[in-house]
């Protein structure tokens, strides 16, 4: 490794970066000849960080910087490389060697480069890169995912006017990326403040995508082996919870965040912008309503897929903790808004919540008992529909092994899972499933008694995307 480094040190920044890419290609290709699971070793990571992301290894060496044009050249080279690399495994391993967050100071440069690469890939429609990015979004910690999403949203929804169409066309090119993108975007824009309300273009695009094909939201879920050990803190399998949050909170959040700008007489906002905001508000609500319908449809669909996978009642795609958090946020929002002024919006929100809960429970996406639900929703203001949902018996699916009126809970003793699908079944996925960072993790089969704990780790740490 060190001899490579010495030769690289003599080159200029761009050619050194190219050389590293070339080196990676040869290195991993040869590794994949020998072993199915190549190892990304420390030396390689360091090489990448020093010569592609330009983080100085030691003080003595002055880091070479590329200017924007050189960077663009490098990006172009990467694009071409990933496009032309025929082996999926090599692509994946190189992508992850380049862009997996390492938790060091190179991450900033790494994320910036990744953002540009993906953004460019969207523009020139490089499907392999988008696929790699989708996998990256699946594996990486939510914080990084959100950052990537932010870059894309900025690029296509706010900076370059009219370019949202480019992004929208990705739907046909890489649905998997779209699904992960939606998940990341819903995690980013949680409607908790004015800045975190999704831009109109984005919202419209997402709604169009889902309305056109509701199954889009389930692509990741359907294509992922359920037994995989997902790293801690990664994104949800589906964007469903985020979408439910959007639908439920949007009437109140828009109401709340538009109020100050109106009462203060747009402080620091250009009048046109304020008008746009209002316009967005006016136009967004039908979109949310459309989105709500789609979400309910997806939930309905989910029942079939869960049953197919034999996961009904065992895998809650909507975690109870997350729903509890949502209800809490909703309660806070209601408190913040003067109920007298926002009766209509509160009613709408609660109606949507009740519908979502009802359908989710019925479809087996939310596993919880009615008592839990009752205690959970006790803080919320009265709503007829919600009341009905909490008190009324739930129609059990006919093939449920459980008694009517009983919701399958997550802690019920698990049925034996089917053995993990072997690499034979899903060759492409299994190839990258054992991640380099998790190679030391024991196989799932060794712990058949408590699979759900590893499977549903829960998002225990709160995070907010960096604004």
């Amino acid at each position: 490794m060190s001899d490579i480094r010495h030769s690289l040190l003599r080159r200029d920044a761009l050619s050194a970066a190219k050389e590293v890419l070339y080196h990676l290609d040869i290195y991993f290709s040869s590794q994949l000849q020998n072993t199915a699971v190549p190892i990304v070793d420390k030396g390689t990571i360091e090489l990448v960080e020093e010569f592609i992301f330009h983080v100085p290894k030691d003080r003595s060496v002055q880091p070479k910087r590329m200017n924007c044009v050189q960077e663009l050249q490098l990006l172009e080279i990467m694009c071409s490389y990933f496009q032309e690399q025929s082996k999926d495994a090599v692509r994946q391993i190189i992508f992850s060697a380049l862009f997996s967050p390492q938790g060091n100071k190179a991450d900033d440069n790494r994320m910036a480069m990744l953002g540009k690469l993906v953004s460019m890939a969207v523009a020139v429609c490089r499907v392999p890169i988008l696929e790699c990015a989708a996998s990256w979004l699946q594996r990486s910690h939510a914080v990084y995912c959100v950052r990537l999403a932010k870059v894309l949203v900025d690029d296509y929804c706010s900076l370059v006017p009219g370019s949202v169409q480019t992004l929208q066309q990705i739907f046909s090119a890489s649905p998997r990326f779209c699904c992960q993108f939606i998940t990341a975007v819903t995690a980013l824009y949680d409607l908790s403040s004015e800045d975190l309300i999704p831009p109109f273009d984005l919202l419209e695009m997402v709604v169009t995508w889902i309305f056109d094909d509701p199954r889009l939201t389930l692509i990741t879920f359907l294509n992922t082996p359920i037994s995989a050990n997902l790293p801690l803190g990664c994104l949800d399998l589906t964007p469903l919870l985020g979408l439910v949050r959007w639908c439920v909170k949007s009437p109140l959040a828009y109401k709340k965040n538009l109020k100050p700008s109106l009462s203060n007489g747009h402080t620091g906002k250009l009048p046109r912008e304020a008008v746009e905001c209002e316009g967005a508000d006016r136009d967004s609500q039908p979109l949310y309503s459309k989105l709500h319908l789609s979400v309910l449809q997806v939930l309905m669909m989910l029942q079939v897929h869960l049953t197919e996978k034999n996961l009904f009642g065992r895998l809650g795609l909507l975690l109870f903790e997350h729903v509890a958090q949502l209800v809490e946020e909703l309660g806070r929002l209601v408190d913040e808004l003067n109920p007298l002024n926002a009766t209509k919006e509160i009613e709408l929100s609660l109606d949507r919540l009740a519908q979502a809960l009802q359908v989710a429970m019925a479809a087996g996406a939310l596993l919880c008992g009615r008592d839990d639900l009752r205690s959970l929703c006790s803080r919320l203001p009265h709503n007829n529909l919600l009341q009905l949902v909490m008190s009324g018996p739930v129609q059990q699916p006919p093939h449920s092994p459980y008694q009517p009126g009983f919701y399958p809970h997550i802690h019920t003793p698990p049925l034996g899972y089917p053995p993990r699908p072997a690499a034979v079944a899903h060759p492409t996925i299994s190839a990258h499933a054992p991640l380099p960072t998790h190679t030391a993790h024991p196989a799932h089969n060794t712990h058949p008694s408590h699979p759900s704990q590893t499977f549903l780790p829960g998002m225990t740490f709160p995070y907010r995307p960096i604004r």
Partner: protein
Amino acid sequence: MSAIFDGAPLTAMQSPQPPHNTMSPQELGLEIKAFISGVDQAQGRKLSIRDHARCAVRLLRTVPACRGAALEHLRGVYDEYVLAFLQDLEGESDGGVAGSGVDVSGSSGLEDVIQEIHTVLSEFIRLNPRAWAPLVSAWAVDLLGQLSSKHAGRRGAPHSSSLNEPLQLWMSCSATRSLMESYSQCLAAMLAWCPDACVDALLDTSVQHSPHFDWVVAHIGSAFPGTIISRVLACGLKDFCAHGYPGVAASSPETPGRQTPPPHTTAVADKSSRVPKIGSVVGILGHLAARHSDSIKKELLRMFQESLTPAPTASDRAGARDSPLQLRRATVPFLLQLAALSPALLVLAELVESLRPPVLLQLQAQFQGLPREELDNMLGLTVHLISQSPAGGPRVLRFLVDTATPASVITSGLTPAPHEGVRDACDRLLQLLLLHLHKLVYNRPEGDDGHPLSAPSPASPSSPPPRIVPFLEELRGHVGELCAETLRLERKRHLWLHQLLCLLSVYGGPSVATEALCQLLTLARTPEELALASQLHAPLSSSLPGLLPAAITRCVTQIHTQSLQSKELAQLLNNLALAVQSHEEEAKGGSAGGASSGCVSAGQSSMVAQVGAAVSSHLHDFCPLLLHGDPAVSRAAARLLSCSQLPRAASPAQLLVISRAAVAHFFLALRLRDGGEEKDGVGVAGGRGEAVRCSIRLLSRLAAHSPLTLKSVLQQLVEGALYKGNADLFGGQAEEPGGEAVPSPDLGASLLDINCKFGTTVNFSGSVWSVFHAGVIGKGLKPPRSPAHPDPDGVTWNLQTLLAVVVQCCSAGGSGNGAGSAGTRLQRPDQLSEEPAPINAEAAKVVAVTLVESVCPDVANGELAWPPEEHARTTVERDIHIRRCFEASPLLFHLLAVVAAGRPALCYCSAVLRGLLATLLAHWESSREPAALDSPWHLQASCLLVSCMGEGQLLPPVLANVHEVFPHLTPFEVRLLLLAVWEYMRGNSPMPQKFTFSAERGLFYRDFSRDGDLSRYLAPVYSVLHKNIDRLGHLCWRFQL
């Protein structure tokens, strides 16, 4: 945005809706490749600069990820354009030779690309300012900086020292202009939500590319003056705060004070190394100051005031370094620092206006916590600033003095007394200021006024020009106010001001010093205040020779130009008099061995001594003031003149002028005293009595000065006393208006008319020929003259005063012409009533001659020898006139008495005596009254005449005693006796030669024994005595030979 760009023809690329929809991803990929390689991918040829730039613009619109690269590429395009532009300029200046055509086409080819770029950018900014404005503004400002500093050295580019030329050049270049417009657009958008960031960037770039970047800042500043000013200041403050304002420490007043006017740029340079932004803050504000100095000042003041608004919550105190409190604390040092770097940013005068007591309290509270050396540094800086500030000095000074003056019961009326701590601080500040000024003034290189101050001056030919101290420079015009303030003698205040006045005088040289001294002399009202003048003089006298004479000359000039109010004038004269008097007293005290006053004021003595000399040399300039309309002035002038020495070298003309004025003033004073006693209170009368006393003293001094002045004074005194206008002063009959003096208005006749009529008619009535002594024919007798003696006491007093003066003059002038009599002369004014000194014969002769001249209109028959009595009828007319004079003015007899005392002067009055005696004889002869007592005036006149002649030794004592019997006689008998007197006079002519000087008594005496037998003249006397022996027996012994 701009009409230029809007008006550009819209090509397909420039259409508002970019054609990104039409480009497939594959095309985009090719486009990127083309952009990177610079080669058209389809045709395989190299892209021109234009096409390459177009390609970049397309990518900018379609591929967000290429943003950075595209913008970076466009920098090159702009650079290329500017280069071509400048080359064009240079080509033009060279005469437009070969090659320029290519360049023109090159730059014009880029022009539309640049327009395209501008259009795209401005559209982006318009559509989404929040996202694009920061991006574009950073890019534009950086590019502008790079362009302007890169091309600054070119031939075509103007030198950056002036601001206008680069501004014009760059604004005429469409590339930089479009950048500027984009930047302005960004700024306008960003100011709404993140003003700090954009100004920060501006400042950073300005620091990096100074001074080539200044035109950008200036342009932006003038486009957004309010915002830029306040933001620039805010950024500077933040930066200042972040870098820690102990930076003030290094800028103690010595450093910038050493160079004369601190060269702006170097100061900025060495400061900016430490606190990087403050330098550019100063630079930018300096540019804006030309046109927006008002708003800058307002902004600075606003900052100051804001810094003092009390903290909203107590939690701020625990805040971090950047907390508002910290910022507020740093504001004042920051402002001071700014001001130290650029004089234009000094707002002292305005600042002082806002320093009201509550503000001061807050200020004090704010700085209480600072460490001592920091405070000292700030004080030093402040002092330096004050001394260097070109305007507002007096206001600042007033404020400092007002605040530092300890509160007293008297002064704390209007404004509440300042806090103790505040006052102490001000006190300290003031003292430091004085110290600093002292250093500045006394360490100056050799002064411009040619008075060497510091002894070890190297006196090199290339010595720097004298250092200007703006504070003092400005105060030069306010010397008068300073003096007035100083003279208020308020506690400490006058000490400070006095010290300042000293410094100012030394600084300003003779002109200022003279003015100050002159002002002090004019405005002082009490001896204590006057002492200030001498205290000022003491330190200055060593450095400014001839100061006092110059000051007095200046005073005199003021008098001549009449620029002083009469009150001030009087004050000035009084003060001078006081000074002279104190000198005299001191001299006296010193000579008497009293060392008590010696130590009191050595300096004062030096001044007053000079005052005496200086005043003496200007004495004739003061004498017109004796006749000033304002009595106070004339009194003061009299006082001054009376106590100052007459110059030995004075010319006769001057002396005559002085004496004339002095005499005139004397009568004026008498009249005023007279009037004053009637109208005003005792105090005023006392003051006027004082005037008379001064006048007396002055006259006697004059008389003693030389025979010439003696003669002149006496002559004028007598003439004045006998002048009709003054008659009423001395109990005489004043001239009646409408009487003899103005007969014609009554008659309505003019001489012309009469002459015209003459010859045709003979009508005397109503003509000039009908006027006689007793009245006008046809009008009856004249109305008898009213006695008109409203104030007999006053008349008596006046008489006595006049006589005293005359006597004094006579006796002073004669007895000692030498200088040895100075002591006695000085004592004399106080001893009017004591034994009179012998009257000088010469002086008496002057009086006599004058008297004769004014009483006796006819010189014929004016010889001293007496003719026979019958001859008197030839002089009836003259005699009547003489008698009337005596009737009109009782003063004459007194004067005669004075003359008589100065033997043998009465001889010269013989014509008058004769005339009077003749009329008396005629009266007694014609009188049919039973007793002489029935015509009292004539009786009195006869008595006085005879006794006077006796006193003058024209008559022997026996014959002179006859007047004692007159009241007991009949008119006829009186005539007999008077005839005897006449006979004696005829027989023994009154000749001065008959008198001999007796040295031991200092008088002339006449030896009557030489005159032969007296008895034949006494025969009528004895017969009258015998006839009336029953009544006159007791008087017989008086007539024994």
